[in-house]
């Protein structure tokens, strides 16, 4: 389905309450929604006859520290029947809990664990929410913008104790401050 017709079709058929912003572009159609309606929107996209998106390719998060709801959870979906991709985005802050979509897309289990681990956006009633990429005793959520690049602890192998120990890092880095305006010209960077 080419971009124009799928955009028009989804604009007309999706209930207006669910959609906050829609974008049609060659880079990928995107639709933005509220976190209450997330599960319902994905269920619609999965089951409806003309938008059979049955595969979730990726779920990832984006941290915009300047916004009030700082995290944005992005669901990339694929429809094998109609060969079309769509992106669904929701915004969340540190304490918002997203509904898990594992019952719709079984592959989403790992992606949601990753989003929880990296950002701290947790899910209600998730069947299996554990850490997936960080170390076992790791505190903090790495992909948030306020965790420094080299982290807070460093690990080294200690010969007397015959095991790996974590110690506070010797090389510190300050809080990451992002100044998006370039020094040469005032360009708004998206």
């Amino acid at each position: 389905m080419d971009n124009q017709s799928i955009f028009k079709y989804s604009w007309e058929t999706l209930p207006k309450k669910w959609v906050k912003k829609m974008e049609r572009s060659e880079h990928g159609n995107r639709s933005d929604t509220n976190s209450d309606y997330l599960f319902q929107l994905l269920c619609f996209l999965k089951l409806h006859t003309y938008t059979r998106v049955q595969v979730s390719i990726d779920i990832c998060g984006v941290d915009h520290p300047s916004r009030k709801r700082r995290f944005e959870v992005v669901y990339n979906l694929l429809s094998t029947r109609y060969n079309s991709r769509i992106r669904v985005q929701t915004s969340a802050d540190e304490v918002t809990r997203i509904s898990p979509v594992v019952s719709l897309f079984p592959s989403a289990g790992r992606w949601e664990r990753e989003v929880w681990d990296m950002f701290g956006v947790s899910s209600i009633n998730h069947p299996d929410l554990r850490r997936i990429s960080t170390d076992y005793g790791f505190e903090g959520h790495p992909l948030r913008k306020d965790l420094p690049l080299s982290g807070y602890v460093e690990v080294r192998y200690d010969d007397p104790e015959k095991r790996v120990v974590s110690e506070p890092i010797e090389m510190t880095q300050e809080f990451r401050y992002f100044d998006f305006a370039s020094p040469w010209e005032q360009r708004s960077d998206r």
Partner: protein
Amino acid sequence: MFLRVIGRPLMAKVKQTTGIVGLDVVPNARQVLINLYTKTLKEIQAVPEDEGYRKAVESFTTHRLKVCQEEEDWEMIEKKMGCGQVEELIEEAQDELKLIEKMIEWDPWGVPDDYECEVIENDAPVPKHVPLHRPGPVPEEFYKTLEAVQSKNGAPAVTSV
């Protein structure tokens, strides 16, 4: 031996396999489809009239129901609809029924007063080395449904059911 002589013309059009893993052949597909589509048309009445969703569902379900009722053979149905195999159609119809049930439960109809939706049409050109998405062929009933949804005069009248 005689059984084969008698039975072979009767069994001539039996489908051997769908070719898809996990999807079994349904021998009475036409009947199942007609049942599902009539049930869908009945269920969709619970959705308010102006909604694009209702118009779309009614449009393509009536079209598919008409095709199923006209043609006797599963092969002719598949060819005429252009939507893949009958078993896939059955799956789509069952999913649509489930969806209608859920939509009625969630009830998201109506537009709130302060609704504003930002529609961005981003026509920024894609760099040449990035492969563009090439869409596949789409059944023509999709375009008819799109027209039905975009028309302001309401859905075509449902004659059956």
